[in-house]
């Protein structure tokens, strides 16, 4: 905490999150279980009895505050469903907050264009579509096109870029998606588990690209379950648990506590022997199926 509070005087804040709450409302659950009477009840009684009428509120993020400064790379950790991705989406301005405020410098963008891409289109058209969806101009996409395709390595095993994306293996598709998403420079960059895709060589390339983006971008946020990629890329970590900010500090300090909390590794992670890291592939690697050459 000491270094971040000191830097408040000289460093430039890029993201200020001021006691933010985020609440999801889910229809058709709870007591009524979506029966017709519950639905009718909901319509008739509107606000007074949201809970009784079967609207469930999920309080995903609770009173979280922090300041991020220019040049920082911040990791977000926490067990599944602790509100990491939700917080990221709110910082990006994509999810309205229930209370509190989020102030940002420029337009933070979520690294990811998955939603804009269409499986039935060729990789080539998806590069254009994704680029335009992220707000690049046609000329910018054209200028970056070769770079994107080369980076993805899609054409290493033949002319795959002119095939529909549904014919790609999941690893290839993930690589193309990352390459499109990483083609744009961002003020504040938010990355959600993006590093866990592709084979080992692609992971190395994408980590290098993240570092490049980080230099160009003001601030980088990274959500990941891989403590290794957090360690490699981040110098500050926010630990969310059940929507609450449990800890905020330098990477090593927070990860030490976090690993003790989850109990999945020895308390001294750096002492973990090197060989397993090289010899044994990460679990993420094993699920990637590349076409055999």
């Amino acid at each position, binding site marked *: 905490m000491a270094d971040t509070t000191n830097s408040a005087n000289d460093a430039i804040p*890029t993201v200020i999150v001021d006691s933010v709450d985020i609440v999801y409302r889910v229809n058709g659950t709870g007591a009524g279980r979506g029966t017709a009477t519950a639905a009718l009840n909901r319509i008739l009684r509107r606000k007074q009895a949201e809970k009784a009428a079967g609207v469930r509120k999920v309080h995903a993020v609770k009173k979280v505050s922090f300041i991020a400064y220019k040049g920082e790379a911040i990791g977000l950790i926490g067990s599944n469903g602790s509100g990491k991705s939700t917080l990221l989406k709110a910082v990006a*301005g994509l999810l*309205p907050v229930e209370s509190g*405020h989020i102030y*940002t410098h420029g337009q933070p963008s979520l690294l990811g264009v998955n939603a804009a891409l269409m499986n039935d289109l060729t990789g080539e058209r998806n590069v254009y579509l994704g680029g335009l969806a992220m707000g690049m101009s046609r000329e910018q996409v054209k200028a970056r096109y070769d770079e994107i395709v080369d980076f993805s390595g899609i054409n290493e095993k033949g002319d795959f870029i002119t095939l529909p994306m549904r014919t790609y293996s999941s690893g290839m598709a993930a690589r193309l998606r990352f390459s499109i998403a990483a083609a744009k420079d961002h003020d504040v960059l938010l990355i959600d588990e993006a590093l866990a895709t592709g084979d080992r060589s692609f992971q190395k390339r994408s980590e290098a690209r993240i570092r490049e983006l980080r230099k160009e971008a003001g601030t980088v946020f990274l959500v990941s379950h891989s403590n290794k990629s957090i360690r490699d890329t981040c110098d500050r970590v926010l630990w969310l648990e059940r929507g609450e900010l449990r800890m905020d*500090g330098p990477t090593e300090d927070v990860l030490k506590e976090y690993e003790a909390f989850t109990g999945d590794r020895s308390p001294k992670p750096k002492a973990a022997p090197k060989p397993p890291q090289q010899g044994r592939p990460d679990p993420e690697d094993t699920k990637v199926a590349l076409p055999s050459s």
Partner: protein
Amino acid sequence: MSQVLHTPPPRQATVDDDLATLAARHGLAVSGARPSLPEYVRQLWARRHFIVAFSTAKLTSQYSQAKLGQVWQVMTPLLNAAVYYLIFGVLLDSKRDVPDYIPFLVTGVFIWTFTQSSIMSGTRAISGNQGLVRALHFPRAALPISFALQQLQQLLFSMAALVVILLCFGVPIAFSWLLVVPALVLQFTFNAGVSMILARVGAKTPDISQLMPFLLRTWMYLSGVMWSIDRLTRQHDLPHPVIVMLKLNPPAVYIDLMRYALIDSFHAHQLPPHVWAAATGWALIAGVGGFIYFWKAEETYGRG
């Protein structure tokens, strides 16, 4: 160095003020705030290439798994027209009253389908694309407009089929065919406007998309797609307000305009009074009104 925050930090109250002033001092803006209307229009214009690319992509991916591929773009409207001909032309024999019944019917079906599918896809434009809305920044109006544009492109395929049908049934090519262009521009504006209204409604209440097919089917039967409003109003003694409402119903206006433009036996006296004024008026009311109505809720899209 670091602290474990089991309890809220004690400085909470003062921090709140500090953060807001700190944000103001460094010129930070509230994330996800709604832009002003001119700014919104500017952003939308900046995304025009995305809107076009997205609609074209949707259109081509529609039949990409089919063996016949893009041939279905023309086949689907033709088959639709055939079904309506079978029911209304052969079985119910409505054609006795109307000269050039097949061109009359097919024009009606195609133009109605344009409005109907624009509205249907507009209703789901936000609620059916939550993933996109929650992942990327763009003026959300791009979605309903893009879907309306997709339907316009679809209609252009149908129009190609329509031209073939018209020529087959001996309708001569005329200068009045050029009127198709302004008529389509106006209808597109109307469709996009209504789509935006329903996109906002559908984003808050997804149930509306279950209701729309019934509303739209009722609307279709009132819009003179398979029968002539002009003939009905002359044969039957209807109260004046009903006649005016039937004739100035927006889809009826656009359908009759298209028939007037394309079919030589459809004469100007069959058109509703002040037809161009009505077509422009509806386009402006729906287009501008729908756009502003949609923009008013811009920051709430994506809450789910």
